[in-house]
């Protein structure tokens, strides 16, 4: 039977995306307004910096990179950390990760935007960026590590944009994505994620004149700290989305990420210790930057408070991560994650980029502290990234969990009921996953149960009235779903119910069933209705 229901096109997709991205409650608008204001303050500070020159920063010929490049280095790590969700989701088919992996992938996109903006605001001549682009410009590849960084960062951005856009587009249209068109890119993005932070480390450790950076441990350290800060940020985002947005991701993705940071936080601290021992024990003059950083030197102590704050934050967070009860205390978990996020931000910037310049290559002690302009621009860049990330999430998350126009069967009443079914199923999963009381779960389940029966009855009546030949088959499928729902009900009422497992079964078995049923079986009768006019 020909399928007469047309699939919606890209224009409708964009309209829907814009609608989703810009629609929300008061909290959403307040958040967007705040980010916009901070970003605009940054834009204004940058415009002034361009006009008056980089003299408005705290940098100089001795410390010639500051907050911008520190922030750039840090956010490369955040972008790379998406891989910690991509690997379990795609490589090990971890179902719990499958819903939330998009949170990591979109974060990678936003983080790369932050990186590219951070480098742009650091340029003395942003008007000449095209000098880097052949054939007009000259690209000093392969000898300049900066050109490698340009390639890997933009490549990583393109990979993640493609994967997210392709999967969301298919999900929206109700079509099955072709694995050939995204899986190779997913696997490539895993290797690529490691490359972006390795190449960024090579920017520094390749410089023989800066002994503080000139260590083979730099790339491993960068990766270890990235796999602390990145997953920590994703945990906070998942907690916030669950709490504020009502998205039922459940504990499992968070538990997995927590297992990752539990280890990486320790590895990161271990590497810092190894670095300190190697430099300090031998007592060579190559350790002068490290000595200045940790203890101050020649009466200069500018970075000492920064690094010890970072160490304290990272040690306390690492200890909290080890505590088995942390998962049950979302507030404390978020606090620990934020602590280590800030700790690593300091460690990468004030603890690594800046001390590479102090003392200078001629051993002069010139200290650095960022000016108000630098803080404004840096916060503006981060706010810009957060703005983009919020819009991306607002577009993607409803697509992933709910009914989309691609699932339309061309019958307004049935579409409305399908949409409602998804909402009810999501509400049930959310109730079970968030460990709400049995009474509430029971209520949600009762409601879903009643609604399913009502919807199936309506649908079957419609088929019968129109003389649809596949009615008996369709009835059997409906009955199967009702039985499955009853089984879930029974399992949940058992005194020793593994509610987490039930939630996952609900979420995947039932939602997948519903998706498939609407996409294939319902469209068949919808075509039938359409031919009858």
């Amino acid at each position, binding site marked *: 039977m020909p399928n007469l229901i047309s699939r919606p096109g890209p224009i409708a997709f964009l309209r829907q995306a814009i609608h989703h991205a810009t629609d929300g409650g008061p909290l959403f608008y307040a958040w967007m307004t705040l980010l916009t204001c901070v970003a*605009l303050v940054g834009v204004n500070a940058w415009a002034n910096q361009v006009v008056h*020159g980089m003299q408005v920063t705290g940098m100089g010929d001795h410390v010639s990179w500051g907050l911008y490049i520190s922030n750039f280095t840090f956010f490369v790590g955040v972008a790379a950390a998406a891989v910690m969700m991509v690997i379990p989701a795609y490589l090990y088919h971890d179902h719990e990760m499958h819903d939330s992996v998009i949170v990591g992938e979109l974060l990678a996109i936003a983080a790369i935007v932050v990186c590219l903006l951070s*480098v742009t605001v650091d340029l003395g001549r942003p008007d*000449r*960026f095209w000098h880097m682009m052949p054939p007009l410009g000259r690209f000093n590849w392969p000898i300049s590590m900066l050109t490698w960084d340009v390639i890997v960062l933009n490549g990583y951005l393109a990979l993640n944009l493609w994967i997210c856009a392709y999967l969301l587009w298919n999900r929206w249209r109700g079509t099955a994505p072709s694995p050939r068109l995204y899986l190779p890119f997913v696997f490539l993005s895993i290797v690529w994620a490691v490359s972006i932070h390795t190449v960024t480390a090579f920017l520094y450790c390749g410089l*023989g004149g800066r002994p503080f950076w000139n260590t083979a441990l730099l790339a491993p350290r960068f990766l270890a700290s990235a796999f602390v800060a990145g997953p920590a940020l994703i945990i906070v985002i998942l907690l916030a989305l669950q709490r504020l947005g009502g998205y039922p991701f459940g504990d499992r993705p968070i538990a997995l990420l927590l297992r990752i940071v539990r280890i990486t936080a320790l590895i990161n601290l271990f590497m810092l210790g190894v670095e300190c021992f190697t430099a300090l024990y031998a007592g060579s003059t190559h350790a002068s930057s490290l000595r200045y950083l940790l203890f101050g030197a020649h009466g200069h102590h500018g970075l000492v408070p920064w690094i010890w704050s970072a160490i304290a934050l990272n040690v306390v967070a690492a200890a909290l991560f080890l505590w088995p009860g942390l998962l049950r205390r979302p507030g404390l978990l978020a606090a620990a994650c934020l602590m280590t996020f800030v700790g690593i931000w300091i460690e990468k910037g004030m603890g690594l980029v800046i001390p590479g310049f102090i003392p200078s290559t001629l051993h*002069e002690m010139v200290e650095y502290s960022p000016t108000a302009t630098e803080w404004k621009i840096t916060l503006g860049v981060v706010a810009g990234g957060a703005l983009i990330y919020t819009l991306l999430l607002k577009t993607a998350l409803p697509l992933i969990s709910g009914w989309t126009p691609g699932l339309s069967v061309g019958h307004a009443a049935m579409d409305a009921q399908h949409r409602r079914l998804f909402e009810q199923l999501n509400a049930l999963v959310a109730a079970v996953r968030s460990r709400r009381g049995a009474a509430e779960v029971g209520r949600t389940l009762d409601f879903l149960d009643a609604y399913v029966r009502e919807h199936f009855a309506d649908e079957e009546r419609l088929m019968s009235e129109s003389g649809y030949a596949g009615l008996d088959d369709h009835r059997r499928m409906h009955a199967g779903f009702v039985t499955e729902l009853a089984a879930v009900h029974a399992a949940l009422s058992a005194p020793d119910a593994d509610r987490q497992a039930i939630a996952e079964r609900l979420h995947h078995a039932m939602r997948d069933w519903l998706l498939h049923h609407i996409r294939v079986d319902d469209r068949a009768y919808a075509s039938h209705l359409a031919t009858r006019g």
Partner: protein
Amino acid sequence: MTEEQPAGMTRRTVLKAAGATLGAGAFAAAIAPLTQWKPAESVDEFLRRHYKELTPAELTEICRRVEADAKKTHGIDVHVAAPQPTPGVKFGYALNLSICVGCRRCAEACHRENNHDRATHNSYIRVFEMDNGTLDLAHGDATYDHPVPAKGKYYMPVQCHHCDNAPCTKVCPVEATWKEQDGIVVVDYNWCIGCRYCEAACPYHARRFNWKKPEVPASEINPDQGYLSNRVRPQGVMEKCTFCLHRTREGRLPACLEACPTGARVFGDLADPQSEIRWVLANKRVFILKEDLGTRPTFFYFFDK
């Protein structure tokens, strides 16, 4: 619900449009300072190709343009030349630490010769006062302010070492800095994007960035200028010692050498076996700063006694 939705949507859409308009207006206001910015004097200058791609005729035309700009901006006549390296010549510099007295006249001469910004008192040379008995710069001080030479001290001026294996040219993402045939490391001020990676890479603190537009009173501007050397630099680009190529490529000596009252500085052609610098390298106790880094400088230090 479905009846109310269109009206609600419309109101919401209007509010969203108003918000977007407000945002766009605020963005325009935030970015407004850029209207005061004049990054290039002309479209031609903005679209200029890389120095190495210019024909001699184009280069001459560009030099005339820089002269015209100087006339327009400062009301003075300057001469801008683009002297090319002489095949077979390889410049080198040697500095006699036994007789340098730390008077900093070289640094001052550099400041004036190269049209450095007056307010920041920039120079390509930093002179370190060192304790006798050590070559470790950690014991040096470049900010000394007392009569020289001081007892128990010796003096070590540091400037660009024009390395044969130069870390700065390697790291430049746009090839805005390179080593010329005669060994001089130069910067194309009109090609540099100002990322300052070369400044991080240089082990000799030889590179300077134009954190602001350099300002020199018209009466003090050195009118004898080189396109790749001492013409007044734009804001936001790197610069460095060029062995005064506008002088040395025309057979004169660097300004720092001419200013030295003790004769501590020796400049010449490393490729010429009869040159004074070759005699110094063959007969004096010579050392190279940070030789272990493998940068292979063409700037040498030596001792008499």
